[in-house]
């Protein structure tokens, strides 16, 4: 399954922009169209994934890896297998957003939101295809380092397990953040029964670092 990105849902872009529901001006609609089109044109979405069987002691099959923290264990309870995913929009979109911050900050803000919406779309599409492929089995939501008590330091192991840097060109900073920033790593549990566990709240949202609702002490209401 390749990374796919055909369109960016407008609602998602507005969501990352913390839109309050005031009517959009014609001019703003045009800006949104233009910025989303730029992301679609520039992004080079790539992904890499691997299916592991969960050993009785929590290890990923063929490795010694047991995710850190207790939340992943709870999240994956009842799952026999787990898919490890890494996806990115590529460095081109990153440059587009960074450079817009010098040229035109208003565009940069919309591009940044459209980029977040785009990488989530890439992951959503992947998960949909994965669900079809693995049917009739069930998939959990995505769970990423930084959610709950799943430590960011686990990124280093995930990067080695998937050979992320070499395969899709994502790198980690000294403090284990991903560059390009519009990148995602996640676990997706696979089970024979629909999963009961569902993370709720902002801690499990990939927009949690930049979410404007959150800054105002509100939530978007999605989770």
């Amino acid at each position, binding site marked *: *399954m*390749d990374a796919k990105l055909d369109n960016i849902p407008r609602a998602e872009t507005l969501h990352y*922009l913390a*839109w*309050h529901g*005031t009517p959009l*001006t014609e*001019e*703003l609609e045009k*800006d949104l169209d233009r910025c989303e089109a730029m992301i679609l044109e520039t992004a*080079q979405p790539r992904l*890499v994934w*691997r299916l592991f069987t969960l050993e009785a002691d929590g290890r990923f099959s*063929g*490795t*010694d*890896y047991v995710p850190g923290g207790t939340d992943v264990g709870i999240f994956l309870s009842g799952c026999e297998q787990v898919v490890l995913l890494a996806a990115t929009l*590529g*460095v*081109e979109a*990153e*440059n587009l*957003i*960074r*450079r817009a*911050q*010098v*040229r*035109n*900050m*208003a*565009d*940069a*803000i*919309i591009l*940044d939101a459209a980029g977040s919406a785009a990488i989530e779309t890439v992951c959503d599409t992947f998960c949909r295809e994965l669900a079809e492929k693995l049917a009739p089995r069930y998939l959990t939501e995505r769970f990423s380092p930084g959610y709950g008590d799943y430590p*960011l330091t686990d990124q280093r192991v995930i990067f*080695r*397990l998937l050979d992320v*840097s*070499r395969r*899709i*060109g994502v*790198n980690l*900073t*000294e*403090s284990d*953040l991903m*560059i*390009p*920033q519009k990148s995602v790593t996640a676990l997706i549990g696979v089970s024979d029964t629909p999963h009961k566990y569902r993370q709720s709240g902002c801690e499990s949202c990939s927009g*949690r*670092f*930049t*979410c*404007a609702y*959150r*800054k*105002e*002490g509100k939530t978007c209401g999605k989770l």
Partner: protein
Amino acid sequence: MENSDILILDGAMGTMLQAAGLKTEELPETWNITHPERVAEIHRRYLEAGSRVLYTNTFGANRRKAAGCGYTPAELIRGAVRCAREAAGTQSVKIALDIGPIGQLLEPLGDLGFEEAYDIFREMVTAGEEAGADLVVFETMSDLYEVKAAVLAAKENTKLPVWTTMTFEANGRSFLGVTVPAMALTLTGLGVDALGFNCSLGPKELLPMAEELREWTDLPLILKPNAGLPDPATGEYRITPAEFAAELRKALPLGVFALGGCCGTTPDFIRTLCETLECAEPAAQKAVRRHGVCCAVGTAEMSGVRVVGERINPTGKKRFQQALRERDFHYIVRQGIEQQDAGAEILDVNVGLPGVDEVVLMRETVKALQAAVDLPLQIDSSDPAAIEVGLRVYNGKAIVNSVNGRQEVLEAVLPLCKKYGAAVVGLCMDENGIPRTAAGRVEIAERILRAAESYGIPQQDVYIDCLTLTVSAQQEQAMETLKAVQMVKETLGLHTTLGVSNISFGLPAREIISASFLSQALYAGLDIPIINPNQSTMMDAVAAFRALSGQDGDCEDYIRRFSRAKTPGQSLSKTDRRLSIQEAILRGLGRETALLTEEALREMDELAVIERLLIPALDEVGDRYERQELFLPQLIKAANAACVGFELIKKRIACRGGQTLSRGKILLATVQGDIHDIGKNIVKVVLENYGYTVLDLGRDVPPKRIVETAVRENVHLVGLSALMTTTVPSMAETIAQLRQSGHSCKIMVGGAVLTPEYADEIGADFYAKDAKQSADIAKQVLG
């Protein structure tokens, strides 16, 4: 199994180690110490298959990847070279110290400094040389800047030959957007001994890229592709050894130097490759056809006319001088962007001004420009130290502007051009001044060419400037310059450059003389005009020449340029006239704001325009944003429009030589460990548009630097941003250090994870929930 002169490399190490039991989460290099016999066994199998160069198991043996593995890079490297030597025994094989990417991205996208990367590579190459490696190979690189740090580290600290192979994607670029010509020009310039590709793709997909590479370099070529493309579902490589060898054989006409395999290849692949090549004759190497200069992602090929933008230069520009003194790189970068948009293909960079540290300014300007502009740079200075620092931190192949016929200048600057692989501009003047005749100038040009060649700088990298003199002062010299251009072109076969604008100094309607002189110079053979691309008459002349000379095939660009809709004139239409500044700003209309500001300045002084018109408009915007009638992008648009008004006023004041109008200085930084800086950048735009001077230290900024800058620049309001729970402690540490320093300042903090309570707890004075509030705080603290 000796075959033709093509050197046979080995195949994959990682694939073989995993087959031998290496776990994916283990650092492969630790096996050099824990399982040396298994590593040596892999080398032995490649030797038996026909490999004549063994790559050591040191791909990731750098200080960063090896952290916590229990061994130092030097120990891992010593162990690795020992394994290879042991396998080689008495056979005549070369041992290549294999070095892959550091695994952390360099600035400007990443958080690793260029000099830090250099130091990481230095540690590895010196350890490799001490351990007895025969050469060093940097492979699987996708960042040209990282390769440059690596190559400099090897060449400055060891005597080892340097091979370099990079990894490209199916779109013909590396993950970081590096193009094949940029790789070829930069690495050939840096003096590597061989270059090529590894990993990336299969041999079939790599062939067209190898062909392109051959057009741009005459260095020995290396190909070490994967065993085809991996199956997307399983990640396994599916091409057979025979297919692999047959495809690689097709590269022989390019005159390849060394062949081997990367991911998915095994000793079987190498054996089959040897057999396939046994009776193959390596082809004679073709001469390089193409040359030019480049940045990492773009090339200015020297064929036809290439426009150099002259605007990044303080001479006679008060506003630019002010920006340099204030280290306002944002302003400088905008000059670069504007010229790129206007059609410049190379940017001249001159930051020399009495009373400034040109070396520091050159370093920072080059870094800032290459982060924002996709054009090659021309480092313009008379100070060899500034030239060197510019060339060192530049990511690509630059031009040096300039040397002249004076011996001491040639001796000081040409070695730098050679070392960093830059092209060089030679001015036709020497200790006796500028010769009055064309013949005299050509003579100096020839002397410069011979000197360049004596340092090993190829002829095609020497660009001659026959010097434009002012026609109003030395009228007969205009034709002499044109004659010299023609002679340099014909007798020496060199590219020529000219600073064109000087011709019209002191005359009215300067653009007419300049454009006319430009057209004539282009006809005389000028390749690289240095002009102001923002003047459309100049770019029109270039467009016309390209059409007339056939460079612009079917006049396509010319037609596109002039069939574009006319831009609206520089006056307000009737409907616009009813617009107030406030409305223009609210609607984010920059052009209208500028015109209305100009109008207002006829009746009021600058301060009054700011205080009575611009600031109240911004306040209104802020209020509407608070009431959620405006949405963030609209707030920023309005702020940008106001900025156009402020910039106009700044320029007027700078031209008068007056004091900078600023409501006060504010330092902004995203704290150490955090790279999410868009929030900080939004705050910056808003604060600047409210008339404050912002010292932006960027992202991932160590506490020490923040304290030092606050003290040195005497800043009394510091804004810190953090977006991650994990970096809030770093913010607390910064605040603690600011307080400890005894420097009196207020601190405001912001970022997604912060709350007013948290801000209080870590000792901040203010919590800013958004950009608007940070402006309110600034007003409260600084007025």
